[in-house]
């Protein structure tokens, strides 16, 4: 029983990472109807930026904030420069552009930082707490990530800009009629998604080590989590992320402890999707002919 709780809590710690990245995916999906497959690589690149700053002697939290700010700007620029030209193109074209972005970022990171695995510092000591139920690191990760998610929620719910962004994503034509610059709302959305991804990367790097390919597994789980929660539901994405994190951990502990655990976890998700095709919190669609 104890081990089950322990593994579950540990799963929650990875789950919040998946939840953050899943939320970033959902944010962009709601505004553009496409999934940003490059979200993981953007997060990875941000983490390298943080690493570089820390290596240069900048204190951890200053580097953290600086990286989040730079990532935000990076996200805005990527939307305006890379994504804008295909705004009106079919969605498969978006997919190819995102794949292109993914490959470019991955390759650049490998070229600039090499493929050697690096250690990434954690601001939380790794001590067991509450009779070994959870480590202080995991608790710290959960705390920071939840903080970011709550801030994001408050932003969208209670600020005028957040409202304008929601409006622009839901109904761009009406938003334009209200004078909202929909293109820039989209860009800011990408900026926020990039910032959230940066936080996820920085939080997970101490555990899985920093290398250009570190986020590909995380992205796959985040994608699965977003769909599990219902691709257009931010709350669903967070919930989905937590479930996937816990599931992965439990499968790895109790069923299969090899690489195959990825396949098994995914299989379980797939089965859920076949049973409930629009995800756990997705709306039921009535389609008009």
């Amino acid at each position, binding site marked *: 029983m104890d081990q089950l709780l322990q593994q579950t809590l540990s799963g929650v710690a990875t789950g919040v990472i998946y939840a953050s990245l899943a939320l970033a995916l959902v944010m962009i999906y709601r505004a553009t109807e496409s999934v940003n497959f490059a979200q993981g690589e953007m997060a990875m690149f941000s983490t390298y930026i943080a690493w570089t700053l820390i290596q240069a002697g900048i204190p951890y939290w200053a580097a953290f904030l600086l990286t989040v700010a730079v990532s935000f700007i990076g996200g805005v620029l990527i939307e305006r420069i890379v994504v804008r030209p295909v705004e009106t193109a079919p969605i498969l074209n978006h997919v190819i552009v995102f794949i292109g972005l993914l490959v470019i970022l991955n390759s650049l990171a490998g070229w600039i930082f090499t493929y050697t695995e690096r250690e990434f510092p954690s601001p939380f000591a790794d001590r067991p707490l509450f009779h070994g139920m959870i480590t202080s690191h995991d608790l710290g990760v959960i705390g920071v990530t939840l903080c970011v998610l709550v801030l994001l929620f408050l932003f969208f719910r209670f600020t*005028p800009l957040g*409202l*304008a962004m*929601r*409006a622009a994503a*839901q*109904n761009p*034509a*009406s*938003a*334009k*009629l*209200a*004078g*909202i*610059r*929909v293109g820039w709302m989209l860009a800011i959305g990408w900026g926020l998604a990039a910032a959230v991804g940066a936080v996820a990367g920085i939080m997970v790097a101490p555990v899985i080590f920093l290398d250009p390919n570190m986020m590909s597994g995380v992205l796959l789980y985040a994608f699965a989590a977003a769909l599990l929660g219902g691709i257009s539901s931010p709350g669903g994405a967070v919930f989905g992320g937590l479930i996937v994190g816990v599931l992965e951990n439990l499968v790895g502990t109790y069923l299969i402890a090899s690489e195959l655990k990825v396949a098994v976890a995914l299989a379980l998700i797939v089965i859920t999707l076949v049973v409930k095709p629009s995800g756990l919190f997705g709306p039921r669609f009535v389609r008009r002919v």
Partner: protein
Amino acid sequence: MALLLEVKDLKAYYGPVEALHGIEFAVEEGGVTTLLGANGAGKTTVLRAVCGMIARSGDIRLAGVRIDAAPTERIARMGVAQAPEGRGTFVNLSVEENLRVGAYVRRERKSVASDLERMYQYFPRLAERRHQQAGTLSGGEQQMLAIARALMLRPRLLVLDEPSFGLAPLVVAKIFEIMAAVRREERVSILLVEQNAALALELADHAYLLETGKIVMAGTSRDFERHDQVRRSYLGY
């Protein structure tokens, strides 16, 4: 009387198809102008063209400033607010959030709050449902919401696209009653597209008749009401 909106030689396009063939009309400062016509005449197209939602060419001036090449957002920021065809409701936002979106471009927070209250006075039904999700409102309520949202911009020109569409006669009458009140108290000019010619002519000072992309008649609303052909074809008596 100064002209707030002057439109000359307006052509509009849906892809390669020319839908408006060089039309001309105007809205007086503080006045109400209505565009009448049957289904498919191109009335909604005119409004879309004025607000920059479709490809167009011609000379469109708002208080003397050309807007025919401006994007929709800029035209809105210059003081043109439209309650579009289909209401344009933000269905997943609450009623109050819809109204706040309408006021997004305005900076002064305090007057936004008082404007909200004024909208709720014009439209008590919206006040009752202020925290309700807008998509669950009835057609009439969504139409009221669309007009209120447009008014939240504090526009110089209020553009209304078929406010009576799909609504029961009683509801329509109520809406037009409110619009008459708005016209009196808000000092806003109105460009109204309507199929319900009788109600439109009652509210408006000037009218234009649109037929397949061309203006075929222009005059005051009294002229229209007395015109035999118009009476028979559009007013039903």
